[in-house]
C-alpha cells in the first residue's frame, strides 16, 4: 500500500518549491508568518524543558521537530473551529490562540491549565491515548447538526492508532459525515515503541480506507504541505463532505517526556541527522535564503519577541496565586453533593488547625 500513499510535499528539504501549483501561494508573508510561529513554539518548548529541569514545572512533553505539523495545521483553522489536542500538541494550541500562561500552568499541575481563553474552543489535552478522537467526532457532528460551517481537528500520534477509540471515532465520523480532520503526527515512536512494532502497515494514511474516508500522507516537516492539506480537509468538512485522515510524517528530536530517556531505545544520532536535513524551521530559512530574503535582524527580532512573551508567561505562571486546595472540591459537580460539602468542610477545618 505504501506506494498508494506517497509522502507528499510542496517544499523540499532545501527550501525549494517542488509543486508548482503552490508557487504563487507561497509568499514571503506566509513564510515569515509560519517561521515566526515555529520559532515561537520552539523557544517555548526549550524553555519548558529547562523549567522542568529546574523543578519549576512537572513532567513535560516536548514536541521539538514537530513544529511544522503543529503550526501548519493550527494555522488552517478558523476562529470558531474546535481543537482536540494531546499532551504534545500545545504548539498547535498556542498557534490557535491558547494562553501561554495557562499551558505552563497545565504542566505545573494546575487545573487552570485546561481552561482556554474565552471563546477559544480548545479542549484539555487528552492524556488517555486516543480518547479525544470520538470527542472530536461528536463535537463536529454537533456543528453539523447546528448547521454551521465550523469544523474540528483532533490531534493524535502513531501509537494512538492502535487504540479502539481511534477506530470507533473514525467510524462514527464517517457514518455521520462529521466535519472533522483527524490529524495524525506520525513521529514514528510511541514512547519507545517504533512504528513497525505498532502496526503491520507502512502508512497510517491507508487506515482511512477502512472508513471510505480520504487519507493522505504528507511530509509533516513541510509546513506548507501541512497547511494546505489541512485547509483542504477543513474545506471538505465545511462543505458537508465528511472527515479526512491526514498522516503527517515527522520526528521528535528529544525524549518522549522529560521523564523519558530515548537513548534506552534508539540511536539519537538519527535526531541530529534530521535536525540538519529535515528541520522544519531550517527549511523555511533555506527558502528565505534561496529567495535572498533572509534577514538575520528580523530573525533576531522575532526570537527576542517570542522569548519576551514566554518569559512574561513564565512570570505570570509563577506569580499565579498559589493553589487553593478548595478547588479540588469545587468543580466535581455543578452543585456539590453532601459528601463533597462535608469533606471540604472537614478538610478546611484540619487545614485551619495547622497540619
Amino acid at each position: 500500500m505504501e506506494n498508494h500513499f506517497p509522502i507528499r510535499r510542496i517544499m523540499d528539504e532545501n527550501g525549494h518549491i517542488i509543486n508548482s501549483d503552490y508557487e504563487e501561494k507561497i509568499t514571503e508573508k506566509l513564510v515569515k508568518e509560519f517561521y515566526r510561529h515555529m520559532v515561537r513554539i520552539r523557544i517555548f518548548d526549550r524553555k519548558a524543558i529547562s523549567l522542568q529541569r529546574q523543578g519549576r514545572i512537572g513532567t513535560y512533553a516536548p514536541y521539538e521537530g514537530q513544529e511544522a505539523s503543529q503550526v501548519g495545521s493550527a494555522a488552517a483553522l478558523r476562529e470558531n473551529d474546535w481543537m482536540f489536542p494531546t499532551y504534545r500538541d500545545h504548539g498547535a494550541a498556542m498557534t490557535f490562540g491558547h494562553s501561554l500562561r495557562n499551558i505552563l500552568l497545565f504542566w505545573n499541575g494546575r487545573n487552570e491549565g485546561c481552561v482556554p481563553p474565552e471563546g477559544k474552543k480548545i479542549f484539555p489535552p487528552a492524556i488517555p491515548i486516543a480518547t479525544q478522537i470520538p470527542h472530536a467526532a461528536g463535537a463536529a457532528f454537533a456543528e453539523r447538526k447546528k448547521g454551521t460551517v465550523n469544523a474540528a481537528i483532533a490531534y493524535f500520534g502513531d501509537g494512538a492508532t492502535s487504540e479502539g477509540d481511534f477506530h470507533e471515532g473514525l467510524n462514527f465520523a464517517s457514518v455521520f459525515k462529521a466535519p472533522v480532520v483527524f490529524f495524525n503526527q506520525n513521529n514514528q515512536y510511541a514512547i519507545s515503541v517504533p512504528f513497525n512494532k505498532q502496526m503491520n502497515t507502512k502508512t497510517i494514511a491507508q487506515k482511512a480506507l477502512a472508513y471510505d474516508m480520504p487519507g493522505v500522507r504528507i511530509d509533516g516537516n513541510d509546513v506548507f504541505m501541512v497547511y494546505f492539506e489541512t485547509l483542504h480537509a477543513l474545506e471538505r468538512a465545511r462543505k458537508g463532505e465528511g472527515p479526512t485522515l491526514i498522516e503527517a510524517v515527522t520526528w521528535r528530536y528529544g525524549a518522549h517526556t522529560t521523564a523519558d530517556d530515548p537513548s534506552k531505545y534508539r540511536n539519537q544520532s538519527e535526531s541530529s541527522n534530521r535536525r540538519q536535513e529535515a528541520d522544519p524551521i531550517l527549511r523555511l530559512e533555506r527558502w528565505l535564503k534561496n529567495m535572498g530574503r533572509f534577514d538575520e535582524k528580523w530573525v533576531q527580532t522575532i526570537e527576542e519577541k517570542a522569548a519576551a512573551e514566554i518569559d512574561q508567561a513564565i512570570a505570570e505562571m509563577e506569580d499565579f496565586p498559589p493553589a487553593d486546595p478548595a478547588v479540588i472540591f469545587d468543580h466535581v459537580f455543578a452543585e456539590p453533593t453532601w459528601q463533597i460539602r462535608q469533606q471540604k468542610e472537614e478538610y478546611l477545618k484540619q487545614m485551619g488547625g495547622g497540619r
Partner: protein
Amino acid sequence: MKTAVEAKTMTLVQAITDALDTMLNEKEEVLLLGEDIGKNGGVFRATDGLQAKYGEGRVIDTPLSEAGFVGAGIGLAVNGFLPVIEIQFLGFIYPAYEQIMTHASRIRMRTMGHFTVPMVIRAPYGAGVRAPEIHCDSTEAIFTHMPGIKVVCPSSPYDAKGLLIAAIEDPDPVLYLEPMRCYRSAKEEVPEGKYSIEIGKGNKLMEGDDVTVITWGAMVPETIKAAKLMKEKNTHCDVIDLRTLFPLDKDMIAESVQKTGRTVIVHEAHATGGVGNDVLAIINDTSFLYQKAPVERVTGFDAPVPYFGFEDHYLPTPARIQQAIEKVMKF
C-alpha cells in the same frame, strides 16, 4: 416537584418513553443515541415511536460502538446538546468505561467548569428476566465510586419518569439504571407533561419502627413482599427505596436507622464492594450509638451473575430478606 394535572396508567418502560417524549418535545437540544433505538424502538421498546415522531436527526441509531458513541456524546454535550444515550444492557457499558471514567465524569473538574457534560446514560440492568449471560449484571458500584457522575435507579413508573426528566435537566452526567424486571411488572398512574423527582432523595415506601430495610431497583418489590409478610408476624419495617445511588440520601437513612436501630440492606449486586457498603458506612458515620444489631446485607453472591438457569438462586428472595429481618430482630 411540579405535577401536571392529567395522568395515565403506564408501566415503567412506558414511563421512560413518556419522559423521553416530554423532553424531546421540550428541548431541541435533547438527542437520543444508541443501538437499535430508531425504527426498532430499542430492544425493550423504550424509544418506541420516537424516531417516527422526532426524526432521524433527534433519535439516532449509532454503530455498535459503545466507546465511540459515548465519546461522541461527550463531544455533543460539550458543544451544546443534551444527549441521552441508551446502552443496550448495563453489561455492555464496559467498553465505554474509559470514556465515562476519564472524561464524562471529569471534564467539569478538569476545566473548572469551562466545559461540562450534561449527558444521560440509560441502561437496563439486572437479573431475573432469563436473559443470556452478561445481560444481567448489576454493576452500579463501579460508577458510584467515580466522582463526577450521579447514579439513579427508579423502581416505579412514577419515579422512572420523574427521575429521567431530572437526569436530563441535570447539568452533570447521570447514569440512569432501569430495572428490567420492573419494566412491565406493574402499572401506575403517571402524570402527563413534565415533572421531576429530586436526585439524591430516597422514598419511604412503608413505615415501621422495628427494622429499616433499604433497597432499590428490582429488589424493591421483593423487599416489599418480605416486609408485608413480616408485618403479619408483627414486625414493622421502614422500607426505603433509595432511588439515587450516588449521592445517597444520608438523612433519610440516618433518620430511619436512628429510629429502628436495626438495618437490613438488600441489593442484587455482589456483596463485596456493593453500594450496600456505602449505606453501611453512612450508618457507621451517623448512627453508631443507635445500632441495636449488626447490619444484615442480603445481596447477590460474590460470584458472577450466573446463567439464567441459576439466576433465581443468585438473586435475593423474599425468603432470604425475611430471614435477615428476623436475624436483626433476634440479635
